[in-house]
């Protein structure tokens, strides 16, 4: 019997939860705010789905309802991607060691 591809995706999902668990526990508490802003930025990889939605069908279809939702999702995700990574970068630049 063949294994359903869903099971493979579920395996990836569950293993990633474990990876996330161990990686996040190793994050130093002083960087918890950048952690939140960077996780926010990377979860916007949902833009992949938005792009597929926006570009589905032929070019006359781009103003279909489903495509429009795709475009809206692109804007929202793009705000997050740029905003999230840039604000994280801005914060991380501020963490400095004592001048010796």
């Amino acid at each position, binding site marked *: 019997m063949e294994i359903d591809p*869903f099971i493979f995706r579920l395996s990836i999902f569950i293993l990633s939860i474990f990876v*996330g668990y161990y*990686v*996040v526990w190793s994050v130093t508490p002083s960087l918890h705010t950048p952690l939140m802003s960077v996780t926010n930025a990377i979860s916007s990889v949902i833009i992949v789905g*938005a792009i597929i939605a926006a570009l589905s069908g032929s070019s006359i279809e781009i103003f279909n309802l489903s495509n429009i939702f795709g475009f809206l999702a692109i804007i929202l995700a793009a*705000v997050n991607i740029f*905003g999230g990574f840039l604000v994280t970068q801005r914060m991380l630049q501020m963490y*400095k*060691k*004592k001048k010796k």
Partner: protein
Amino acid sequence: MSANLSAIFYLLSGILFILALRGLSSPETSRKGNYFGIAGMIIAILVTFLSIGNFEVGFVYVIIFLLAGGAIGAFIAFRIPMTAMPELVAGFHSLVGLAAVFVAISAFLKPEAFNLGNIGAIKLASLIEMSLGAAIGAITFSGSIIAFLKLRGIMSGSPITFRGQHFLNLFIGIAIIYLIYYLCVTQSSNIFWSIIVISFVVGVLLIIPIGGADMPVVISMLNSYSGWAAAGIGFTLENSALIITGALVGSSGAILSYIMCKGMNRSFFNVILGGWGATDQTSSSTSKEQKPVKSGNADDAAFLMKNASSVIIVPGYGMAVAQAQHALREMVDLLKKNGVKVSYAIHPVAGRMPGHMNVLLAEANVPYDEVFELEEINNDFANCDVAYVIGANDVTNPVAKSDPQSPIYGMPVLDVEKCKSVLFVKRSLSPGYAGIDNDLFYRDNTLMLFADAKKMTEDIIKGL
């Protein structure tokens, strides 16, 4: 680009996201980590373009929308003051949630574009995944909006509770599960829309009973939800980058919520069910008696600190409100010139989000190796001459260690009272968020400095 090749690239971007989080284990590696994250995102977007391979009119629009959103995001990222980070993060979470809802709607309206079957005959597994993704996304969206309004002060931070609230939430939760089941049976679009609308309502109901100082938990929880929503959509789209990221973000938010709850010695459910101190506040104000308090002025404080050999600063949310972090750094610089050893003690739940105080101090150019967590520094208070408590309250209350009757009993607190003298900057004697009196105010070694945190710190600078 073949489906197999793009799947491998998506896996690669997933790995880069893991490295981005791994980088945050220390400030030195964190900046490189952020670049890994950016690289992962660029790979994911490029691979998507190449695998679609459609560079017609639509592609131009996608680029335009992408850059428009990016410009807004970049503008916000550069303009936002560091004190506003909690509401910024809440706002960003709401966008992830809404994007997840929109993608799920697109997939429902045009399933063939995602290889999920046809309208009215969407694959069962995909239907469950997309409706779960949409429901969690909608809860994340409306919940984050409420959190944003509360943090921004547009909505009152006090908990809004009413009778039967928890039963209502439970009932709606069951209703959503039932509707998802019904959706799978009928494939009806009306039910799909109802699930989304009801989930928006749940998000609001879930966050309104939670009070202002519990916001660290709320933000972490919504962070976690936004991850699960992304993972749900990732299953729908059969995209490993999205599944990996969703799982990472989901567990990250869950861990942060756990750390925050532990910092308050409260269970997660206790926080979610809301309304801490909402009832206690009235009872404590009636039983208030006049106890002697020693109060002083900036010159007393300056004198004490100048002659100390070591000072520990305990910042809290009040410092963020008063924007006193820069003045504080100036004061510390002067003390250091006088040969005083200064360090900072940060309670896990100080501020309105995890790590809030650390970012503010970093902004004011405080080196991160002078800033310590509770466990690292708590033993040092006994050997310290002066503790300067600025904008913190409940996290210093010794009652948490001594009085089993107290609502905050068992909460880890900073042992500030063990210092030779304690300088407590506060506007009045009013109780903190927990609604209880702070025993520290009435100790012999405590000197109350009644003023705005920033003003007092500036006056002390003059006194030095």
